[in-house]
């Protein structure tokens, strides 16, 4: 084979290989979706949404308390985490100098990478140990700690993308800086900020590790935020590693519900972002 033919051959082989890599990675998503929809769809029934879990080995029952529990945990975590992340993001983008914002930014990125199990231990030490019992508070604190860095960095990023001329326009009309931020800069970037928040909330909704020893779990309804609280991800974990077939079935059902929740939020968030960008351009 001539040198040129060899080079063309290598070119074709390697480029095809990159296509194969892409195919393999993208098809993973469809394998996961297909398998989960198949198994979960088979297992999902009305009882799943309305009934409490049955005891070990018993057939039937549902995860109504875990669905409500996840809503409570994620809701409270959002109430704690979103304002902190949002306002800190405003600081980074609008008020910062050089050094301190750089440190905060770097630390937010590092916090984002802290293993979720470590965040769980943190919440255990800060909330469970003083209160001496597992609670939704503890779980929500853990989830909020995971949410904050995501919201901070997203908010900052989208505030930064607002053109400087918009700020100058408001300032030159005599508006104070904070008024400029509240009435001009934030509204101009709100779709991006919302997207970031939805993505962050979707991410914490699926977290299991920080909840195992903070909100723990509960076979019954939990009232208020002071009791151990059941959640969908922890139920998927407990049921999947159990030896009972009916629990496996319900783990699939819970997995499907959880994945649907997360993926729909992700696609929704993308939609908001795309529309927001289009509106800004037009």
């Amino acid at each position, binding site marked *: 084979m001539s040198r040129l033919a060899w080079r063309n051959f290598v070119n074709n082989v390697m480029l095809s290989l990159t296509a194969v890599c892409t195919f393999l990675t993208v098809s993973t998503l469809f394998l996961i979706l297909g398998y989960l929809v198949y198994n979960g769809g088979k297992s999902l029934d009305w009882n799943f949404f309305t009934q409490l879990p049955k005891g070990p080995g018993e057939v039937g029952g549902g995860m109504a308390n875990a669905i409500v529990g996840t809503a409570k945990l994620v809701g409270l975590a959002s109430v704690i985490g979103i304002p902190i992340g949002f*306002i800190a993001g405003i*600081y980074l983008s609008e008020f910062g100098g050089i050094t301190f914002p750089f440190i905060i930014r770097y630390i937010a990125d590092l*916090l984002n990478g802290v293993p979720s199990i470590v965040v769980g231990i943190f919440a255990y030490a800060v909330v469970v140990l003083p209160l001496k019992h597992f609670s939704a508070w503890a779980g929500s604190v853990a989830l909020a700690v995971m949410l904050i860095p995501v919201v*901070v960095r997203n908010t900052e990023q989208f505030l930064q993308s607002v053109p400087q001329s918009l700020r100058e326009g408001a300032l030159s009309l005599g508006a104070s800086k*904070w008024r400029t931020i509240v009435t001009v800069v934030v509204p101009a970037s709100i779709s991006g900020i919302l997207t970031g928040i939805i993505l962050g909330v979707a991410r914490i909704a699926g977290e299991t590790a920080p909840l195992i020893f903070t909100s723990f779990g509960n076979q019954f309804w939990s009232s208020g935020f002071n009791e151990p609280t059941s959640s969908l991800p922890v139920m998927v974990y407990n049921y999947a590693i159990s030896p009972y077939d009916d629990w496996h079935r319900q783990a699939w059902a819970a997995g499907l519900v959880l994945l649907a929740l997360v993926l729909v939020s992700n696609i929704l968030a993308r939609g908001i972002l795309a529309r927001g960008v289009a509106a800004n351009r037009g």
Partner: protein
Amino acid sequence: MPSSVAVSVPPATGAKATFFSRLKGGDQVAYLITLLFASIVLLIAVLIVFVLWQESTIARHKFGLGFFTSSAWDHNEDNYGALPFIYGTLLTSFLALLFAVPLGVGAAIFLAELAPPKISNALTFMVELLAAVPSVIYGLLAIFTLVPLLRDYVEPALKATLGFTPLFSGAAYGVGYLAAGAVLAIMTFPFIISVSREALLDVPREQREAALALGATRWEATWQAVVPFAKLGIMGSIFLGLARALGETMAVTMVIGNVPRISASLLSSGYTIASVIANEFAEASSDIFRESLIFLALVLFLLTIVINGAARLLIIATTRKGST
């Protein structure tokens, strides 16, 4: 919102007056409030380090550096060592990168260099959706699909062909280092693809065109001119993936077998730092047991901080290079 805010600032008569007039304008207040909230981020980070350090005091004093070289895990004697967990964590993460780096970088090259932008964006979105799938769902799928597949087909085949090496000896149960590594690979490559693709897209056109103009084939231009230019970003993406693999908990806990031992065989059951914490923390009966687990969490925390810190610096370095 007070409506008097837009009133123009009166001329300053002194430092104090300036301060109050600016306070009236709200800017100083807004500055202080946002600064306060930004400080919470710092506070959380400091608090995490403090809590992990404080709550592991007894274990740190009792075991000292010997913690890292001991493979004891004895609840009766309350004697604990970290070696099997560190080994399991490093081995599974290494296996994950072994699968995920070629796949991820290959796919990133395709998405950045070959695919038309529209298709590339759509495919990248799908890959990024993979990153959004909760880890417990990867675990669920792995238990019921990957583990039986490995046990019944892949591992017997590996034993038949490579069984003479210590890497593939012992019984094939499906669960173990190999299963954990495979799941981690699937969980890592979305990060590698999405960050590497960005790095490749940031490479200036001239870099490509110059190579092509010299007569390079498309692959030669990509591999010899574009990829080296994006090297730091790609390295950063691998480090990010590594940090995720090291700290990944649920999926690994569900497929690694949860046995605290060190084995050269990839088919063997093992344990990782994150999975032993997930599995045993809620049942930790004695203080020293609980503190040993928190000591492990501290080790894991420091490990991921170092890797993540390096990744961020690499990524910052590439964006600087790209922008100048």
